[in-house]
């Protein structure tokens, strides 16, 4: 049994292997949904997106204000925990939804929220659009998907570090380092066309400028306080993003062309669904990315008979994920088999 580290780089030897195997830009299984039903599900409404964004921003503002008032007391710990989580974790699903452009009918609203959430999440907005396009083309295809969060064999240190965004902030900082000197990293060049380089470079530079400004502010007032509000929450508030994010694909199959085999749908309560923008319906989202987040529960109802069983909650998902990741430490070929009981009624896209 080999525990050799596999090359998950998208510009390494696995890239050509994925192409040779016909796994790149391939046809994926899609459940059959009547056109009339799909048209209703794809409809965009401004109401839910505006409401949810306002609630998020109000919570961010109030928790930030409380964190400011509690500075220097023990109360700052829960206050910053809430603020940081809303900043560093809840921003992630906003980045994602507004990046797909499905959340609302308003282009400017979509663009503004996307860029705001991208910065909070510390994802250079232009390159991440393209990264996520690739993730949707080649979901968990080794050598092509740049967003595989759980490479094998499992590295618990890497996962624990990610609870504080250490790995992702380091990776993004390197990318932005290229941007500062007017370049785009070799990995990004693999999935982003030249026409986007200029925008990407300038976005990265703006992020660097903001972070540099915050650092200068901290030095000037001899306090870490400004960074606790801008920049650091991406790291100390990351934990919930990881808790949600690992449920998406961890432990499941690689190199398959059926989202039902490499993605999870997990039942979550209303609070988690708000914080996570319904991304717990993750198979449905991957299969039909034109459906906005607020219609995913209805989409789930429409396709559930052609789906694997839903995990009844986050804890249930982790009861499967943790043993699987432990096993993948020693056996990188192991994966959770979600083969369908009835995979006959869909079609390749």
């Amino acid at each position, binding site marked *: 049994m080999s525990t050799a580290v596999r090359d998950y780089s998208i510009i390494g030897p696995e890239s050509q292997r994925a192409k040779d195997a016909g796994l790149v*830009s391939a046809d994926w299984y899609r459940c059959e949904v009547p*056109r009339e039903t*799909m*048209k209703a599900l*794809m409809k*965009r409404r401004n109401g839910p997106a505006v409401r949810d964004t306002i609630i998020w921003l109000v919570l961010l503002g109030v928790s930030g204000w409380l964190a400011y008032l509690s500075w220097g007391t023990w109360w700052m710990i829960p206050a910053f925990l809430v603020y940081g989580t809303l900043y560093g974790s809840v921003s992630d699903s906003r980045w994602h939804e507004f990046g*797909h*452009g*499905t959340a609302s*009918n308003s282009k400017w609203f979509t663009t503004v929220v996307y860029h705001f959430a991208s910065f909070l999440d510390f994802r250079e907005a*232009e390159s991440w*659009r*393209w990264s996520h*396009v690739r993730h*949707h*083309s080649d979901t968990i295809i080794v050598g092509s998907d740049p967003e595989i969060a759980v490479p094998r064999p499992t590295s618990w240190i890497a996962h624990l570090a990610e609870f504080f965004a250490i790995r992702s902030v380091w990776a993004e900082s390197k990318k932005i380092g290229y941007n500062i000197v007017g370049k785009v990293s070799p990995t990004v060049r693999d999935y982003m*066309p030249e*026409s*986007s380089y200029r925008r990407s470079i300038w976005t990265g530079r703006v992020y660097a400028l903001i972070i540099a400004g915050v650092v200068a502010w901290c030095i000037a007032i001899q306090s870490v306080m400004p960074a606790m509000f801008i920049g650091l929450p991406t790291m100390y508030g990351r934990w919930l993003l990881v808790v949600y994010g690992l449920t998406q694909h961890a432990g499941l199959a690689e190199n398959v062309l059926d989202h039902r085999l490499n993605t999870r749908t997990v039942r979550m309560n209303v609070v988690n669904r708000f914080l996570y923008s319904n991304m717990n319906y993750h198979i449905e989202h991957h299969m*039909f*990315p*034109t459906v906005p987040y607020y219609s995913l529960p209805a989409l789930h109802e429409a396709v559930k008979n052609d789906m694997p069983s839903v995990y009844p909650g986050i804890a249930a998902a982790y009861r499967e994920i943790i043993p699987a990741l432990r096993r993948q430490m020693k056996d990188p070929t192991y994966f959770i088999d979600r083969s369908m009981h009835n995979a006959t009624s869909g079609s390749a*896209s």
Partner: protein
Amino acid sequence: MSTEWVDVCGADGIDVDDVIRFDHGTRTLAVYRLGKDRYCATDGRCTHAGVHLADGFVNNGIIECPKHNGRFDICSGAAQGVPVTVNLRTYPVRVEQGRVLVEIPADPK
């Protein structure tokens, strides 16, 4: 290049603000109905990843690709941003005697 007007479907064969796929010779087209009386036609596959646009979403004169949310202006074919960078080809459309016709270049013999 010679062209031909090809019968696609009845005028009511496309729902309002919807799209259908139309295959003719070696071509795949997407034929749209915008509002009650306006019809347009474009190439049927997204210029980004070649996915059939007829499975996509028609919204305010824009067609959104079902795979990566790439968007095109239906009437002009203009790409509207990431991930589409190449415009769609458009085709003249007319309605005659309740039938939707599209002008398509003849396939080379």
